[in-house]
């Protein structure tokens, strides 16, 4: 009896050892897991955005693993390695250095939210030949001749240049006529100024749109009455309103509502995700936000309903925003590249991304619905999205393949 039990135990042990051995041999050929880095600010003033990106990445990794992991690597699971980029360029760079030093088998990474963080972090990843996907806007990111950085968003300069033709097209299809005049109301922060500059210079010459009112203010505003009065007296067909400070947005939007320009009566277009945050709902209210549009590089879009629904259930965040959806998509890009490379090797993965040209799979999570990077790593025809507040939600209204609703643009009689 005792003898038998001992035999059984020995056999079990032997079997376990043998199994362990097989697994280890298997790992040598195709690893059981593939590491992907996420380098985003998780502390400091940008922590909330980084947190949203992390949850987007986690959701994608879970989806990928639930659906069988990386098939080409015998179903290897993806594992997310999260690093905090902190609140300064230096910390972001240090974190990138830590990432490449301590995770030599990482195949790809995404980050680092702020352009300046991304610029610093990619100086490290470039030298380590680790590919880095980013949603940052800066023109510099893919302007340095780097070979391992891939920018999925439209660059700031391109966004600015494309904004007017995009809006003209949108107005045409929504209202049946092209706007002839435009007003500009901008704060004097760098991002806003660089957005309005091409409009000031090119709107008239290239698109025949006259700038009839052009006001610049320094945040924070204490009162928006005079600014809004001047706009009302000039009555432009649309208003370009890049704003970075929530309190300024609130003052202007409330005043426009008071003056009868709100709720889309004067089509008003902001830039960036600031005015489409959930904070705006609490600060300004759905009523007054109705009709406000903003130009962004990516947003929750058609075809992503299931993901968004799951996101909402899990995070209690009402929508994903550019940060979550782009990071979600980045994970699928890496997965796609791993399938193509058939190796968990960072250079092979980078090469696969360089030659990638897809209109399905990961392309579903980006405007333009195509993923092809140019020689500099910039996604070709990255394009824009226009989001409009409708019924208390910012919904994508452009481009049509991503739009979940029609743009509301007043028809002038």
């Amino acid at each position, binding site marked *: 009896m005792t003898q038998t039990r001992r035999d059984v135990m020995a056999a079990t042990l032997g079997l376990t050892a043998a199994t362990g051995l097989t697994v280890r041999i298997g790992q040598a050929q195709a690893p059981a897991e593939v590491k992907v880095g996420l380098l985003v600010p*998780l*502390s*400091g003033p940008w*922590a909330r955005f*980084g*947190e949203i990106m992390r949850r987007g990445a986690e959701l994608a990794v879970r989806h990928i693993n639930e659906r069988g992991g990386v098939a080409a690597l015998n179903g290897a699971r993806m594992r997310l390695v*999260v*690093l*905090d980029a*902190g*609140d*300064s*360029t*230096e*910390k972001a*760079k*240090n*974190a990138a*250095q*830590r990432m*490449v*030093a*301590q995770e030599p088998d990482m195949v790809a990474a995404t980050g680092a939210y702020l*352009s*300046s963080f991304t*610029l*610093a972090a990619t*100086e490290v990843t*470039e030298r*380590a030949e680790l590919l880095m996907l980013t949603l940052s806007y*800066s023109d*510099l990111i893919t302007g*340095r*001749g*780097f070979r391992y950085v891939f920018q999925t968003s439209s660059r700031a300069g391109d966004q600015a240049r494309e904004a007017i033709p995009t809006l003209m097209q949108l107005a045409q299809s929504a209202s049946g006529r092209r706007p002839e005049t435009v007003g500009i109301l901008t704060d004097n*922060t*760098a991002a806003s100024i660089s957005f309005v500059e091409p409009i000031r210079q090119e709107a008239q010459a290239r698109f025949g749109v006259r700038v009839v009112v052009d006001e610049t203010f320094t945040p924070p505003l204490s009162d928006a009455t005079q600014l809004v009065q001047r706009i009302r007296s000039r009555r432009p067909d649309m208003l370009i309103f890049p704003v970075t400070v929530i309190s300024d947005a609130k003052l202007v939007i409330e005043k426009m509502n008071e003056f009868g320009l709100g709720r889309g009566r004067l089509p008003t277009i902001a830039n960036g995700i600031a005015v489409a945050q959930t904070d705006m709902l609490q600060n300004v209210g759905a009523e007054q936000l109705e009709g406000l549009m903003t130009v962004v590089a990516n947003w929750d879009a058609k075809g992503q309903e299931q993901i968004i629904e799951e996101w909402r259930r899990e995070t209690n965040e009402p929508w994903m925003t550019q940060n979550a959806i782009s990071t979600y998509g980045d994970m699928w890009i890496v997965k796609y590249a791993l399938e193509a490379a058939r190796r968990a090797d960072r250079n092979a993965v980078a090469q696969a991304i360089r030659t990638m040209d897809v209109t399905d799979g990961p392309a579903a999570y980006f405007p333009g619905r195509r993923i092809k990077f140019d020689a500099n790593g910039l996604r070709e025809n990255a394009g824009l999205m226009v989001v409009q507040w409708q019924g208390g939600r910012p919904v994508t209204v452009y481009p049509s393949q991503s739009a979940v609703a029609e743009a509301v643009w007043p028809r002038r009689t």
Partner: protein
Amino acid sequence: MFVPRPLLRTVLPVAAFLALWALAFLLVTNSYYRLVLTIVPIWAVFGLAWNLLSGYSGLISFGHASFFGLGAYAVALAFAEWHVSPWIGIPVAGLLGCLAGVVIGVPTFRLRGHYFALAMLAYPLALLHVFLWLGYQEVSLPMRREDGPAFMQFADARIYGWIAVALLGGAMALTIAVERARFGLSLIAIKQNEAAAEAAGIDTWRTKLVAIVMSGGLASAIGGFYAVILLVVTPEAVFGMLVSAQALTVTMFGGIATPWGPVIGSVVLIPLSEVLQAELGATIPGIQGFVFGAAIIAVVLVAPEGVFWRVADALARRRAPPAPEASAVEAPTDAAPPRTQPAADAPVILEVRNLSKSFSGLRAVQQMSFAVRQGEILGIIGPNGAGKTTVFNLLNGFLRPDEGEILLEGRSIVGWRPHKVCRAGAGRTFQIMRPFPRLTIADNVMVGAFARTRTLDEARAVTADALRLVGLDRDVRQLAGGLTNLQLRLMEIARALAGQPRILLLDETLAGLGAPEVEVLLVVIRRLAARGITIVIIEHTMHAMVRLVDRFIVLDHGALLSEGAPADVMRNPAVIEAYLGKKWQRADA
């Protein structure tokens, strides 16, 4: 300073530390740890730059990011726009920092204390917005794939580390050189008491300006190197509040006014912050900042002057038992040498004509005229508020008279700054004593010796002589912070003496002393007079004064009331009335 520390004993630990740090790059292979090892000396140098101005002179700057950021942008823009290598860019950035030091220092030194600190805060904030407005949100240092080393770009990351260590060596050497020069002692004197330093003959304005120029140059140069390491320069990263704060944090943590302070601060805090960021950043985001802050608060509570001083004080206490109480000054054994009163026709050394000064309506001194003869001991007496100290402040240049003339040996000194008056031969002491508490007795006195000496050795000789003259030559190494009232008075006199004055203004030197101590001082003052130094003394203690002075002048309500030999003045009814009131005068009459 007075007792010079052997250079080797100062330099050897520094050299050993730098060698060890450089060696660490050979042992560490992890690229992340190498980066941290490179960043530590960078912040240490920035801390040393801040220390050169704020640590030694006490002018707290909350805005050293101005220099740091200008240096970083100079290097980055020169590289990105004009392809200038950082090998040239960094020295140029240093010069630019020196220039910025002048531009910032000249207007800002008009402010003192908290106002100076706050004004300094404004510069980086303004510069941050200027660079945003210029469109330099992000400046990236281009990657040179072929000729990297010519542009300070190395495949081997250890070289960055070694450059950082070399820069740290340079910054520590500069700090040590400053500490060992009279310039350094002048800065410390300014920190401990700017008015006393000025009165002791130090051109405080120029000294401060040189300090900010050196500090700015160093901060800019290291800012330039920081750009080379970070490769991306943004206004927030180099002009931000956190940058200025970093200099203060590492220095205050490690120890102010020592070359080791910023180094200790960086060596502890930078890796600590990185470890916390790495270990906690992704799991409990934000907690690392809290832990870091708590660690700093804890250390500041335990070691308010920084780790270095805490350790140094503890070692000093263990090494040397407390100085014996017997070091209190005993009465000089030798009586004062005999002296004869100056003749009535002795030359006039100091002459005051029609001197007036008002403080918004209050006429503190009105139409005062008197003369002091060479070799005389003149007593100035008068009730509280009579204007005695105001007269001294007018004489040595702290105040500028509204009208009237002051002639020192025939030359008008109206409008001269105090250090110039001092150098011209008029020394003074203060009613409220103004010692430099963190300096030894000898160094306190030596500050005064810089007024009229050129070399350190000369200054040491003059200091030793002054100490001997007042009888403090036995406890030269004692810190001024722990002295008795009498010792402080004597030390102040010695400091004034070290300036080799021809005339000495003593402001209530006997105040607060007991009778035996007064006797000690009287002997010392007579001894000075016997040396031919003219003495003008303000005093309340009449019985002592009567025995000391050759002549009195009596002030009341800012005007000259009476003048004459002690016996005559004491009998003057007007004087008695001014001091004691009308009733006493009548009773006496």
